[in-house]
């Protein structure tokens, strides 16, 4: 309970901090009152159309990624499973890029997250088929690397073939992710996908707890593992597809957050789910505030910050896994 309150407080405090952070130098009180009560001049427009969507998106995307990381790790019983690392985000980005650049959908239309969802679905299926539920860490990571590399290369290819001169420079956005200049349109695009994904994954809580005892035990306890797996795949794909369509592929959130929070929830997957959702929102908001404070004029990508935090932890986890095997 204390963890829940602490994380919720952190999410709210960072949400407020995010709202008052930006290149337009305005007072915090003045900004927040313009957000809530409107008023004359351009400030309400800045607060409502630029900063509010950005803050809301950071909460939704961070929460979604934290949650899907925890769910994947619970299902695979592997602390290295994370949507970005196992190639699901890259596959979603490929789906989005193909949809935009073949003219199937305009960016900012509902077709875009569906296309990314399609890519994410293919990505999750491929990883699970290659690594399998019983597969070890090594197979999982190798499958992820292969899918990431292929999806990344195809994304670059599609962007390079675009007649639009700006497309090629957007490779970085799709691989690293950013929330710069997103609008309320994107919030509405993302919301249903997050809702469906969270709803599906929430039904898995008890099944994931049972899985800690092993697949056979879970089955004898009456959990349909095939259904559990399908629900997980669709839930993760909905979240990762939606977030990637809006903000590009942001890695490591689903790795770092469950890892830090696991000791606090007694390594119980069901409790780790909601804790990681809140923790992911905290982490991504921190990252998004960092990119605006550290290099406001450079549009530093979110994935750069999350990777700087996450990659060393990832190496540490690999080292620990190896030590455990030896």
């Amino acid at each position: 309970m204390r963890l829940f309150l602490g994380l919720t407080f952190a999410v709210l405090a960072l949400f407020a901090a995010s709202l008052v952070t930006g290149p337009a130098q305005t007072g915090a009180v003045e900004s927040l009152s313009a957000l809530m009560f409107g008023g004359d001049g351009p400030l309400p427009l800045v607060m409502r159309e630029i900063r509010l969507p950005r803050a809301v998106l950071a909460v939704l995307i961070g929460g979604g990624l934290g949650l899907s990381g925890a769910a994947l790790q619970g299902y695979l019983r592997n602390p290295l499973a994370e949507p970005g690392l196992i190639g699901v985000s890259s596959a979603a980005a490929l789906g989005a890029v193909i949809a935009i650049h073949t003219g199937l959908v305009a960016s900012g239309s509902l077709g875009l997250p569906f296309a990314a969802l399609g890519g994410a679905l293919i990505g999750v299926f491929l990883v699970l088929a290659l690594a399998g539920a019983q597969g070890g860490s090594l197979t999982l990571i190798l499958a992820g690397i292969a899918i990431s590399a292929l999806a990344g290369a195809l994304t670059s290819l599609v962007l390079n073939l675009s007649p639009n001169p700006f497309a090629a420079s957007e490779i970085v956005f799709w691989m690293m992710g950013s929330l710069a200049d997103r609008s309320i349109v994107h919030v509405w695009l993302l919301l249903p996908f997050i809702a469906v994904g969270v709803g599906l994954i929430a039904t898995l809580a008890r099944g994931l707890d049972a899985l800690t005892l092993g697949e056979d035990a879970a089955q004898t306890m009456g959990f349909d593992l095939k259904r559990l797996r399908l629900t997980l795949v669709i839930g993760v794909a909905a979240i990762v597809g939606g977030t990637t369509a809006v903000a590009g592929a942001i890695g490591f959130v689903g790795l770092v957050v469950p890892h830090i929070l696991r000791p606090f929830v007694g390594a119980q997957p069901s409790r780790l789910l909601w804790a990681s959702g809140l923790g992911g929102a905290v982490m991504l908001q921190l990252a998004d505030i960092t990119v605006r404070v550290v290099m406001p004029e450079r549009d530093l990508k979110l994935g750069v910050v999350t990777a700087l935090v996450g990659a060393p932890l990832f190496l540490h986890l690999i080292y620990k896994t190896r030590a455990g095997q030896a």
Partner: protein
Amino acid sequence: MPPRAVPSMLDCALTGKHIARRATAGLVALLVGAACACADAPKRVVSVNLCTDQLAMLLASPGQLVSVSNIASDPLVSAMVDEAAEYPMNFGRAEEVYLLHPDLVLAGQYARTEAVDMLERLGVPVLRVPFARSMADVAANIRLIGTALGREEAGEAMATDFEARLLTLQEGVRSNPSAALYSANGYTTGAMSLSGQILLAAGFENVADDAGIPYGGVLPMEVLVMAAPDLVITSSPYPGASRSEDVLRHPAVQVLRSQQRRATMSDQDWVCGTPRILAAIEALAQDRQALEGDN
């Protein structure tokens, strides 16, 4: 290697001084060692840069210009697509340009430097025309290319006409409403750029100058909205989709633009320092007059 270029450069030493008096000091260095107006004007001129393409097409005598760059045929950036269709196009590669046997190559100052360096090593005379950052640069470039083509009088006449029409356009500026140039990725340009100078010439104040962006850089959307300019001038969209151009359709920018009576886009007239930028200034001046009428 054909030595044909070398004597003409020596012959030109005297003429070079003559040009130096006319051209601004910064141009002199570029002229020395490059082709210039000798009694025998260049007969096979190849242009490999969009802006020199257009000036050359405007100034060259019939048959003198052999080829222009492929970009001159791109209607998004070239103001002279129809004229360019009458010339064979080149892609600015050293090999293909060399095989056209040019006795003068017109290039931009910074573009395609490897290919241009290669041509110089092969003994082809190259004139690197500096990038126009101001109205004075435009007139200077017109004279520079006119002289290089041996068409000094045509160049002088066009430059004088340009200066006169520019002065006429700048008369009668009563107020200075503010404007912002806003293109893909939130990129804007300030007073040290041609488009910034077009704004100033049309009687606008540039938001980028207040934001401390003298050349070019990203103007954060928040800063744009807070500055609340009287006019937002966006770039013309390229074909195909891109996330970079999404900012131009962002709701905040839409609201800002919906408060304005004019929705102006920069187009091919803005790209190069040719007399065509007068058309851009003229269109903007009309926007300004409309804004003044509103007040």
